[in-house]
């Protein structure tokens, strides 16, 4: 059976403080796919993910989630769409006045309105999944960078969302932790089958995690395809980024 397009971005434009950050981004993600959006720092990847999650409104263009243009929705309708989202923020965005347990249980308690007897086993299972047993009573300030990311990952996927956004999930982590986070994302994707978008500039690691890659360059998607397509591409911008050779852009 052919998979449907779950996320579509059409001619997205955004100018922030006079800078034209997104210059007509086009993108599509198949249901169940795991797409990585790569590009240099400050290239608009996080701005794009803010549009995909409805946190920013574009100047023009559309963002379709399962056929619904979320750029035109009011708060109530947007929240209906967001019920299928899980988001791992770049900073983790754990609530610093709550413990790890309270953070991970927050969406279950507040959004799904589950009872404490149903919440507890799910939180402990999530903590086991991300290898954070024994940290449930700690506050985010007591955790290392990698532990914060894993706690945030557990919170992002605990409601079994159908779409998960990962905004630079491995930034600032050492190579071992990066590998562990990438493995967690891949394993959880295989287990739960969500559609995922990972914003990253971890080359080549991300090629082993994502099923498709899109390179955001100069405000547009320069190439979208598999990791093989990226490596074999003759487009200078793609080659420069993938092979980390800035001189290739000049030639």
């Amino acid at each position, binding site marked *: 059976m052919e998979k449907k397009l779950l996320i579509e971005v059409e001619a997205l434009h955004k100018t922030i*403080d006079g800078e034209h950050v997104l210059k007509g981004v086009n993108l599509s993600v198949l249901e169940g796919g795991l797409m990585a959006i790569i590009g240099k720092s400050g290239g608009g990847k996080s701005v794009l993910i*803010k549009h995909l*999650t*409805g*946190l920013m409104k574009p100047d023009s263009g559309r963002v379709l989630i399962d056929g619904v243009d979320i750029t035109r929705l009011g*708060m109530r309708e947007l*929240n*209906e769409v*967001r*019920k299928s*989202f899980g*988001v791992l*923020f*770049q*900073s983790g*965005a*754990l*609530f*610093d006045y709550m413990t790890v347990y309270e953070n991970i249980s*927050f*969406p279950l308690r*507040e*959004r799904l309105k589950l009872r404490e007897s149903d919440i507890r086993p799910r939180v402990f299972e999530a903590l086991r999944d991300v290898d954070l047993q024994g940290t449930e009573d700690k506050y985010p300030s007591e955790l290392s960078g990698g532990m914060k990311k894993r706690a945030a990952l557990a919170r992002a996927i605990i409601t079994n969302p159908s779409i998960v956004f990962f905004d630079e999930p491995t930034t600032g982590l050492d190579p071992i932790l990066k590998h562990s986070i990438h493995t967690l994302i891949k394993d959880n994707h295989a287990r739960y089958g969500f559609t995922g978008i990972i914003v990253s500039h971890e080359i080549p690691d991300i090629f082993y995690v994502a099923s498709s890659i899109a390179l955001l360059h100069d405000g547009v998607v320069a190439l979208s395809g598999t990791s093989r397509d990226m490596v074999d591409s003759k487009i200078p911008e793609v080659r420069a980024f993938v092979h980390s050779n800035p001189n290739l852009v000049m030639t």
Partner: protein
Amino acid sequence: MIRPFKAIFKAIGSESVSFLRGLGKMGIFLFDTIVYFFAPPYKHNLIVRQIWFLGNKSLTVIIMTGAFAGMVLSLQLFYTLRKFGAVSLLGPGVALSLIRELGPVFTAIMVTGRGGSALTAEIGIMRISEQIDAIHVMALNPFNYVVLPNFIAAVICLPLLTAIFDVVGIYGGYLVGVKLLGVSSGVYFAQMRQIVGMENINLGIYKSLAFAVIVTWVCCYKGYSVGSDSTGFGARAVSKATTDAVVSSSVLILVGDYIIGSFFI
């Protein structure tokens, strides 16, 4: 010849538009807060936490300032009233000044300095560390978690803190007037009940309720809107928002005091 004038008008116009836009955003923020205030469910645990933070933690500073405000007032009034042979009005004078004006204003300014600034900083940090965005993408309304508990806590706490300030201030005035300056205890309290009256107590309560709205409105808005102007999105933006919140709240409290006072004169 025209060019310098054009630049000046352009700068004035740009600043005016920016100022009006800011006012509009603040107005919408207040409107949203009031709308959500009448739309339960409320987050009771967060409200209790904020009552503890805004109320209980402000108690020491309110008692201290209340006592000294009453003592200073009593000292100044005593020497003025003595010139007119009206020392018997010392108690009612202290009570009236505290209940009508000083109690609500001082309490609101103290809560702004101690609790309001912390609110702005906390909400500002939540904003720059994407915690507010995290609530948004969970399909929840951040107002219910970040703004409303503070709003409700302030509406509960400020009248109570004002009452404590007034009572402590009256006894501070008693200490100076009766124990230090030799006014009779009976004289100090004798006419207080007749002269102060319920309408003045009500006015104090109205003022403290209005100031509760002003403090939470301004402080929460400043924190919530960190990063929405040219100050950037980092620690400096939070620091500027905190300063702005304290200054704006204090000015608005005094403006509000005059406006409410002029209606109930």
